[in-house]
């Protein structure tokens, strides 16, 4: 693997030289050796000669056999590269890497220092594959929490194929603007108060007699569609200056919505797939819990392993792993136990390979080692079951029939309880 070979090259240098080297992986995945020759001016010639064979070995993942090293002295602003906030230290080798990816880069860095945690509890619903009932589950949880008298803010961060907004709002309820508009606006300036007010709408579900609380919905897209594809592109673009990156905008939008609605809890529906949004949602929002809706399929776990391995490689696993919870989406009626056993085994395998600490003598000594047995119910990999039932097949939160109610507890009870456990004690005292 190119990265391993390049890291090996750097790791094999003398300590003083090693500390002045940086791997730069460009947008195409090619790896360049960068030398901070302000620190080791005498070593440049030797390194430049040694990288020739390295680049030849790495081809095509290198600037080519005749490629050069990137020198600090030739740059206008060397610290923008050598001290970039995106530089991470590879867990295995201790070698530093700057990854220039257009997508996926922001989510691989640590939560912003400014995120003080002074916000209502946030719960992220995340699924690597679509169609696993994530949106239905989020609607059910919103409904149950609102039934108990809470003010629930539902944020539909699935910008490209919003589902949750449509589950909780009728077409005529849709606010003028959606989250997408806010992302675009934040690319050029701050959000004004009217703009925030126009982005969120009360769900008619709140008017049901059995619902004591309120559900507010911030949909992905508003009534005024405009140039959808253009907006989508601009939403993902980094603005001029680091404070307008996608992650920062997401945090700002949430803060403004929370200030507007004053919710007891925020449920965030996140895009399925290994994309910016899902990854941002999990890592920058200081979420109480990231619910990973997963089927038992090989594909799902293959994708999740890629995601977890990426965190692990960059030494970020320790930051996020404690907030994760696997949810067994769509546990079948027939063969439920067998299904859950398979899913549990697969989940444990992947978590053990990526996010859990190594099970060796040293870690067994440590009380704070982060690993769990396969059948440990308190483990993040231990799948919380959501049971499929035909009652929910075409269930709509806003629907007339209440036949499903008998099935909420058996199907979603554990999930609702898990979310409830993230919240402060009951809201009965409130007004």
């Amino acid at each position, binding site marked *: 693997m190119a990265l391993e070979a390049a890291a090996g090259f750097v790791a094999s240098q003398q300590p003083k030289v090693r500390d002045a080297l940086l791997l730069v992986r460009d947008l195409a995945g090619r790896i360049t050796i960068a030398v901070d020759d302000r620190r080791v001016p005498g070593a440049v010639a030797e390194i430049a000669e040694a990288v020739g064979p390295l680049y030849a070995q790495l081809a095509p993942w290198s600037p080519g056999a005749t490629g*050069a090293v990137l020198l600090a002295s030739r740059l206008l602003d060397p610290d923008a590269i050598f001290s970039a906030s995106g530089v991470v230290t590879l867990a295995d080798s201790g070698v530093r890497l700057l990854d220039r990816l257009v997508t996926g880069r922001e989510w691989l860095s640590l939560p912003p220092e400014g995120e003080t945690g002074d916000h209502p509890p946030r719960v992220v619903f995340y699924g690597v594959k679509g169609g696993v009932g994530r949106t239905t589950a989020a609607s059910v949880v919103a409904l149950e929490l609102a039934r108990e008298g809470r003010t629930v803010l539902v944020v539909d961060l699935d910008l490209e194929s919003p589902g949750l907004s449509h589950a909780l709002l009728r077409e005529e309820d849709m606010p003028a603007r959606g989250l997408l508009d806010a992302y675009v606006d934040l690319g050029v300036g701050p959000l004004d108060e009217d703009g925030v007010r126009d982005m969120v709408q009360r769900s008619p579900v709140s008017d049901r007699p059995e619902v004591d609380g309120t559900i507010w919905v911030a949909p992905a897209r508003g009534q005024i569609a405009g140039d959808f594809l253009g907006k989508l592109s601009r939403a993902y673009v980094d603005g001029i200056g680091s404070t307008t990156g996608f992650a920062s905008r997401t945090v700002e939008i949430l803060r403004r919505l929370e200030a507007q609605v004053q919710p007891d809890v925020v449920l965030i529906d996140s895009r399925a797939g290994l994309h910016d949004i899902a990854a941002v949602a999990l890592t920058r929002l200081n979420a109480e819990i990231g619910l990973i809706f997963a089927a038992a399929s090989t594909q799902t776990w293959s994708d999740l392993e890629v995601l977890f391995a990426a965190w692990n490689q960059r030494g970020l696993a320790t930051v996020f792993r404690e907030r994760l919870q696997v949810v067994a989406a769509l546990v079948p009626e027939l063969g439920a136990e067998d299904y859950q056993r398979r899913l549990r085994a697969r989940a444990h395998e992947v978590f053990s390979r990526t996010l859990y600490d190594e099970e060796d003598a040293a870690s067994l000594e440590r009380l704070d080692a982060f690993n769990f047995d396969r059948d440990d119910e308190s483990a993040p990999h231990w799948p919380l079951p959501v049971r499929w039932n035909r009652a929910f097949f075409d269930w709509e939160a806003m629907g007339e029939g209440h036949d499903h109610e008998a099935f909420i507890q058996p199907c979603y009870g554990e999930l609702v309880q898990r979310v409830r456990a993230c919240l402060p004690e009951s809201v009965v005292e409130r007004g």
Partner: protein
Amino acid sequence: MGKVNYWEAAVRHYHDGKVLLSSQPVPREANADQLFGLAAECALKAILVWLGVPTDADGGVTEPGVKKHIDALWPEYVNHPDGRVAARYQVGAQNPFHDWSVHHRYLADVHAGGSAAAAHERAAFACLLAAQKALADHGGGSL
């Protein structure tokens, strides 16, 4: 004609512009200003080349729309097909070099410009930063 390298040229022009600007007893603004315009031009062309605009055998850009000096190049650059990648190297829609002209180099001292040298220096710096970003994004070693 040798091999074109817009990035190296941009850095060279910028540094030399700063040398002239800090010269004693009197800053040599007119020519410093010319160099900042040249630096910005090369920086934007470097980015365009990395983004894939067509070049000749020596590496020079060939598109008529882009074969311009900075005063006319800026709007061409800003309006260049916007992709997710191109948008990373934005320099702002307002053209800070609208009052810069290559013709200043032929004029009498009094008309040779230079009063905007400081502003042009800052604008050139911003262009070079964007180009540096693009450099790292596109296999930084192969200059």
